[in-house]
């Protein structure tokens, strides 16, 4: 019989157990850098933001603790409420335009098969562009004098040119359209994937049962698409609520603050006027609203996954 050539049993057992703990150490080491960086760049500024919002800071010079003065100042101005209202108009106005469009595109892409994918690719080209560059482009197109595509066309047709970006009542719808132009196709990707999850047989069965196209859409497509729709709504809401680059590029908040949303106000106060204490207070308010929106959607999403199926 062969002799057993190794150390004592206890030594081997130690090695075995050691390796198990070692695995966890290696795992933590591998994930570590990612975790550290993400925490550093997200959590740290959050604390600094909260802290700074309670202080008076101008031009990077800290002038001391002022408690809730910044917040009081913000909320005692009537303009603040208008700004917040504009944020919601922009956000939900964009949603109202983007989501139906994305849904239409998703349905079309499903129908068109291979060509559909090409179609989707083409629609995504604006999404691949920089938002500020998009703004610059549209500023040129909407220029209310000869040269601007829209204006020149109008003039050629005998009409007078329209000044969309400098018209206080037209500015907001215009930036909404530009914003949606840029990223509605992204939502279409998610909805197309969601539609792909619905088995075709359900439609066939419904057709055999005598449902019309509209009824099939209402009773099968919409309910089964609900999770994807919710994801799209959540992502787009956050995206539009925080959108600032398009506004900077097109209207710089004007005309007469017609497009000054909360996001833009943060830019104006914190980065242009360099009133950083107050700017951080606005940031805190934005952060809280973001959080509320995310929680609301998570609740809704959790609910829709809970019932049905």
């Amino acid at each position, binding site marked *: 019989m062969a002799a057993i050539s*190794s150390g004592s049993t206890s030594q081997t057992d130690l090695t075995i157990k050691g390796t198990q703990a070692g695995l966890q150490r290696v795992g933590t080491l591998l994930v570590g850098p990612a975790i550290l960086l993400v925490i550093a760049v997200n959590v740290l500024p959050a604390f600094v933001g909260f802290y700074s919002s309670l202080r008076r800071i101008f031009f990077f010079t800290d002038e001391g603790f002022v408690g809730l003065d910044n917040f009081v100042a913000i909320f005692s101005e009537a303009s603040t409420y208008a700004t917040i209202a504009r944020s919601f108009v922009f956000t939900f106005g964009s949603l109202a335009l983007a989501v139906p469009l994305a849904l239409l595109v998703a349905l079309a892409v499903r129908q068109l098969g291979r060509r559909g994918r090409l179609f989707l690719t083409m629609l995504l080209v604006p999404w691949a562009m920089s938002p500020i560059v998009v703004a610059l482009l549209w500023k040129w197109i909407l220029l209310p004098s000869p040269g601007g595509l829209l204006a020149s066309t109008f003039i050629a047709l005998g009409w007078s040119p329209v000044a969309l970006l400098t018209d206080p009542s037209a500015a907001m719808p215009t930036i909404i359209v530009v914003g949606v132009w840029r990223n509605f196709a992204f939502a279409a990707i998610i909805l197309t994937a969601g539609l792909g999850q619905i088995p075709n047989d359900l439609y066939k069965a419904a057709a055999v049962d005598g449902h019309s196209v509209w009824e099939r859409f209402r009773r099968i497509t919409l309910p089964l698409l609900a999770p994807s729709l919710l994801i799209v709504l959540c992502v787009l809401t956050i995206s539009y609520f925080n959108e600032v680059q398009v506004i900077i590029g097109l209207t710089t908040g004007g005309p007469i603050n017609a497009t000054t949303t909360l996001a833009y106000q943060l830019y104006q106060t914190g980065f242009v006027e360099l009133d950083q204490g107050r700017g951080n207070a606005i940031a805190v308010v934005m952060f809280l609203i973001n959080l509320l929106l995310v929680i609301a959607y998570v609740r809704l999403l959790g609910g829709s996954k809970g019932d049905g199926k």
Partner: protein
Amino acid sequence: MPASILTRDESQSSARSVRFMDVVKRFGAVTAVERFNLTIEPGQFVTLLGPSGCGKSTTLNMIAGLELPTEGRILIGDRDVTAISPADRDIAMVFQSYALYPHLTIFENIAFPLRARRRRTEEADVVKKVKDAALMLGLDSLLHRFPREVSGGQRQRVALGRAMVRQPTVYLLDEPLSNLDQQLRVQMRSELKDLHLRLGATMLYVTHDQGEAMTLSDSIAVMSGGRIEQFGAPKDLYRNPANLFVARFLGEPGMTIIEGQVDNRTFRAPDVVHDAPSVISGTRLAMGVRPEDLTPCQPDNGPMSGIVRTIEFLGSRSLIRVDVGPVLVTAFIASEAEVRIGERIGLKPTTPTSVCWFDLETSQALPRVAVC
């Protein structure tokens, strides 16, 4: 279909034994393998047989080094490999899903183990070895293809080739045939057996298919719930099952088990009266008898009788199922025998020694005087 397998003139005196010494494997609170002790002699084909979840794959993974035992030691030859990495154990493994590298050609798949840096094989040597293995397995025309382009049976052979090409001391096979269709499976079984004879290596096989285990193995370790129920040659396990689990698991169709009670040297169960082995009156026993050990007789002439429920014509013989009390008894009969469904028929064991007895309290077989 492979061409006739060429003889390899490798002397396989390098085959090693495999030993488990008090091996235990726990996953948190769950014990997957318990007090496992097993010795596999060099050059043997040993199967770990059992239902899903019995711990057989975990045991195999421990030999491979893919799982670490919580306690105990594993030896390959006279080397304690318990804590050694898989790469250094000189073993080869064939996985249930074949685990072929999808981005490499079949040639590169088989060559992969030879090209590991620790082996330092010369490229010309690699090419020769891969080609030899491919030829032996009938893959030589497929070497430039990718795994997704060839059939399941061919992928199986590629997995075998990848294992063979290093000439390891121990082969580990984890249910390699279970993804193949029935016909291919039977064919591959005989090819594996052939391969084992030619290579002369130690092979450890895992399966839940008892027919496969019995065809291929020199010895079988029947496992259940993380422990070995019985270890021995297929014939021994078949004829002398050590407990009810082994008795039920081996054989297709399986052994009929009738539960009853001993009353004054007679075993009684519904519609069954048979001489009992010498145990205390009142002991509850199970009587086990295989279908090939029963012959039909007159209803009053045999120890058991019942109504024939089904008759399956199998060609060389027929299989009947008879309701004896609450138990459905299976028996083989000659295909010309005149038996009708619904008829009352008697059955008796061909020889008294072909009946196996089990204690119902412990599930263990009673010791027997003669071979069953």
